C-alpha cells in the first residue's frame, strides 16, 4: 500500500523525484530538484496512506574524491522518515555540492529538523536556507572548518595528496615572510 502511495507521489512531482531504490529491504528515494524538497516532505507527511509524521534523523555523507560516489555531487544528505501508522521507514536522499544553492530547510514541516540540520551544517558545512537558528551545535562557536569532511584531518595536519597539494598548502601555517 505504501508502495502505491509512493508511486502516486512520484507521479505528482514528476521529474523532481528520482527512482525508488530498495537495498536490504529499506526504501530510499532521491529528490533531484532541491526547490521541491519542502513540498515533497509536506506531501509525505500529510498524504493519507503515507503519513510520515516523524523525522527520525538527518545526516550527510561526504563523497570527497571517491570513485565509489553515487553521484557527481560531493555531499549526500539523507533524511530518515518514519510512518508510525503504517510502520514504514523511508530515506530521502539529496545531493549537494559546495557552491550550489543551499538546501531548503524543512524545520517548518518537521520541528525536529532544527538540531539535525544544525548538526549537519556544523559537521559538514552543508548549507540550509530558511533555518531559524543555524549556529554551531557540537563545535565551539569560533571553530574553523567542518570536522566530518573527509579532507579534515583526524589529528595533527591535513594529509596532502597529489590532487589537493595546492589547496591544502593555502591553509598551512607556514612561516610568513
Amino acid at each position, binding site marked *: 500500500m505504501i508502495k502505491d502511495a509512493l508511486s502516486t507521489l512520484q507521479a505528482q512531482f514528476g521529474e523532481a523525484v528520482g527512482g525508488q531504490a530498495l*537495498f*536490504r529491504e*529499506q526504501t*530510499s528515494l532521491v529528490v533531484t530538484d532541491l526547490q521541491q524538497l519542502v513540498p515533497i516532505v509536506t506531501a509525505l507527511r500529510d498524504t493519507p496512506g503515507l503519513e510520515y*509524521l*516523524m*523525522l*527520525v*534523523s538527518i*545526516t550527510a*555523507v*561526504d*563523497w570527497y574524491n*571517491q570513485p*565509489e560516489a553515487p553521484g557527481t555531487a560531493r555531499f549526500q544528505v*539523507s533524511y*530518515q522518515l518514519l510512518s*508510525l501508522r503504517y*510502520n514504514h*521507514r523511508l*530515506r530521502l536522499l539529496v545531493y549537494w555540492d559546495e557552491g550550489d544553492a543551499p538546501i531548503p530547510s524543512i524545520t517548518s514541516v*518537521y*520541528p*525536529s529538523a*532544527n*538540531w539535525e540540520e544544525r*548538526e549537519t551544517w556544523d*559537521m559538514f558545512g552543508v548549507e540550509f536556507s530558511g533555518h531559524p*537558528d543555524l549556529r*554551531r*551545535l*557540537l*563545535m*565551539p*562557536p*569560533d571553530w*574553523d*572548518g567542518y*570536522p*566530518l569532511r*573527509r579532507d*579534515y584531518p*583526524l589529528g595533527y595536519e591535513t594529509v596532502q595528496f597529489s590532487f589537493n597539494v595546492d589547496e591544502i598548502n*593555502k*591553509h598551512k601555517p607556514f612561516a610568513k615572510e
Partner: protein
Amino acid sequence: MVDQQQLYAAWTGTVEDLKGIVSERALSGETMLLNMGPQHPSTHGVLRLLLELDGEEIVTCVPDIGFLHTGIEKNMEAKTYEKSITMTDRMDYLNPMGNNLVYCLAMETLFELDVPLRAQYARVILTELTRINSHLVWLGTHVLDLGMTSLIMYAFKERERLLDIFEMCSGQRMMSTYFRPGGLWRDLPPEFEDAVTAFIDDFPQTIDDFEALLTDNTLFIERTQGIGFVSTEDTIALGLTGPLLRAAGINWDLRKAQPYSSYEHFDFNVPVGQHGDVYDRYVVRMEEMRESLKIIRQGLKNLPKGPFRSNNRKYVPPPRSELGQSMEAVIHHFKLWTEGFRPPKGEVYVAVESPRGELGCVLVSDGTPRPMRVHFRTPSFVSIAALGPMLTGYQVADAVAIIGSIDCVLGDCDR
C-alpha cells in the same frame, strides 16, 4: 578559510550576540538570563542551559551541548568495522550493550550475516539487563534531584549486581564490547544463568519497595505531576521516542513494531501513559523494568544450545582451536585482524529501542574495510533538542524535574 583573529574579534560574547536566541525583553534587562550548567549536578553530565527568567517563570530555554563531543563518528571512519565496536560503548555509557547491539545489527544487515539463535537470545537478555541498569541510574538520580537522597544508594546497590553479571560475561563492568558481528565475543559463562536467575527472583520485590517510596508519595506527586507536559502531536513532531512517546499515550515500541534480534519470540507488554507529564514517564519506566524481567525470564527458559557466533569466516574469526590445524583458518584469522573484511557497498539504517528511545545507526559502506560513514541517531540528542519547548512556561524549580524525566545521557547526545 576565515582569518582566526577576525573570528575572535567578532566573538566577544556580548548580549547583542544573543539576539534572536532569547527574547527582546532579555536584551533590555527586563527578564533575567540564568546560566545553568555545564557543571550543574542535576544536568546529568555536561549539559548547559541558558534560561531566560521572568521572576520564577522560564520564558526561553536554550540548551547548549557539545561539551562531551569526542568525534566518535570521525574516529570510526579511520578504523576497521570491528575495531569501532569499543567506541560504541563509550557513547551512551549507561547502555553499552544496546549500543553494541545497534552497531552489530547495522553491520549484520549490511553484510547479510546470520546470527545463531543462542547469540540472539543472549543479546536480548543482556540488553534487557542493561535497560534495567540504565533505568536504575535514572531513578536514583531523578529522585536525588527532587530531594530524596536515600534511593540512589538502593538503586546503585542493585545496579552493582548487574555490573557483576556484565563482568562475568565480558570481563568488563561497563564498557563490555561483548557483542560482535555474527554473535558474541565468547559463549555465556556457566555461572551466568544462576546469577541472572538470582537477580530476577529478587528484583520484583525491589521495584515494589521503590514504588512504595514514590508512587503514592505526596511530595513526589506534587513535584512531578502536571509538569513537562508535551501533547501527543508535539511529541511526534519533535521526534521524541521511547518512554517519552509512550508516556504521551502512543503505543510505539520498536521491540514490538519492528522486532530485531528475535524479540518477536518474546511475550511482553508495552506500558503506556496518559498525560505525558513527568509522573507518567516515571510510571512507564517502572513498568518497563517489570516487563524487562518478564523478557529475561523467558529468554533464560528458552535459551537454545548451540553455536554463539556465526560460522561465516569472511566476517567472523575462526575459533582459536582451529588455528593449529587448518591453514584456511590461519589465513582467515590473519586477514580479519590485519585488513578487516570488505563488505558490500550500500547504506543501511537500523534502529533499536534503547532505554531512552530510538537508537539508530546509519552505516554507509564503499566496499573498503573501513566504513565510509557511521552516524548514530541518539535519543538523548533529540530529547535535549525538545527541552526548549518542554521547559517553557514552568518554574525554575521544575526544570530539574523535567531534565531528570527525559533521562538524557550527554555522552549519548554529543558522541
